[in-house]
């Protein structure tokens, strides 16, 4: 396994909080989980900002785990991986009451961790049936959103805006 092509993170609560920060607000141009090419031992984790005091709830520290060999995956493998994670996410979060909880699901976070190459698969899924992919898309598009401010929360218009953006940028056929 090529150490330089591996995304790693430590599944501590601080890492989860960092991922949530990435997904829910701290998308200031850099990904919270960085490619380890310059730092093979462990990733740099962004400062957790989202859950504040609640991020202090400890669930224990685990050994570093490998999430994916992103750069060596073919598109077909990546799509299969997306479909598996997407199915798991949808199945296990259908009753959740808030998007905050949904986007904290490990499968959703793993999709984000693969980077912008997941965007075409997300858009394709969004085209088939609207779902809560908007935070992932905004995160993967480096904090860009094609949705007009007045359309925030309008699922139909948000979906249309992202699909139009995908077509215009060659990410959706």
């Amino acid at each position, binding site marked *: 396994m090529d150490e330089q092509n591996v995304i790693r993170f430590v*599944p501590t*609560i601080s890492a*989860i909080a960092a991922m949530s920060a990435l*997904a*829910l*607000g*701290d*998308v200031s141009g850099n990904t919270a989980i960085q490619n380890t090419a310059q730092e093979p031992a462990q990733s740099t984790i962004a400062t957790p*900002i*989202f*859950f504040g005091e*609640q991020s202090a*709830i400890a*669930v*224990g520290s*685990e050994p570093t*785990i490998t999430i994916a060999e992103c750069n060596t995956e073919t598109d077909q493998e990546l799509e299969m991986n997306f479909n598996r994670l997407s199915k798991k996410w949808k199945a296990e*979060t*259908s*009753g*959740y*009451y*808030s*998007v*905050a*909880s949904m986007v*904290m*699901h*490990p499968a959703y*976070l793993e999709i984000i961790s693969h980077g912008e190459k997941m965007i075409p698969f997300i858009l394709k899924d969004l085209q088939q049936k*609207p*779902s*809560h992919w*908007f*935070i992932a898309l*905004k*995160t993967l598009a480096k*904090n860009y*959103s094609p*949705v007009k401010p007045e359309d*925030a*929360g*309008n*699922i*139909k218009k*948000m979906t249309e805006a992202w699909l139009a953006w995908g077509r215009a940028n060659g990410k959706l056929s």
Partner: protein
Amino acid sequence: MASSPKRYLPQEREENFPCLTKNLYEVTRDETIDYNCIALAAGDRTRRWEPDPSGVYYWPISKREYTVECFVEMFESLGYQKCKCSLKKRLFEKVALYYDPVGCVEAVDNFGLWHPEVLPNFPTHATKQLLNGIWNSKLGDWEEIEHRTLRCLNGTDITGKRSSYGKPVQILKRALS
């Protein structure tokens, strides 16, 4: 309540709410992700209201936090004020906020990652009282229901396998216009 025949949640969904028995509720609208409980309580079925810090979803005030305090501030911005009584009063409309003091902190998945369906002290739900005193709730992305009591939706589940709303934590009222 709405006209018959009455509709109910699928059993696997109903099981998420141990206090929700068929004599106390009925489904009034089909499931949709177009709006959520907060939006419904605020009288809006056209968009989803969420205080996500990334600003993806609609939220009418600048403060964006998943805290009971922030949710109260949001309803106060709509003209509501805190009150202690959930009984129907002729000249007022009321909403109730739920939160879960326990959460699902024990739910950990195969990666060893915390699976936080319900974070402790997260506001979990909002419901609006109708003119007949019955409460109107949108259950996440699931169906919209009318239920006779606030307690109907009480519940805590630490396994992470179910949705749980905890319990009502704040009632707010607003003069009917």
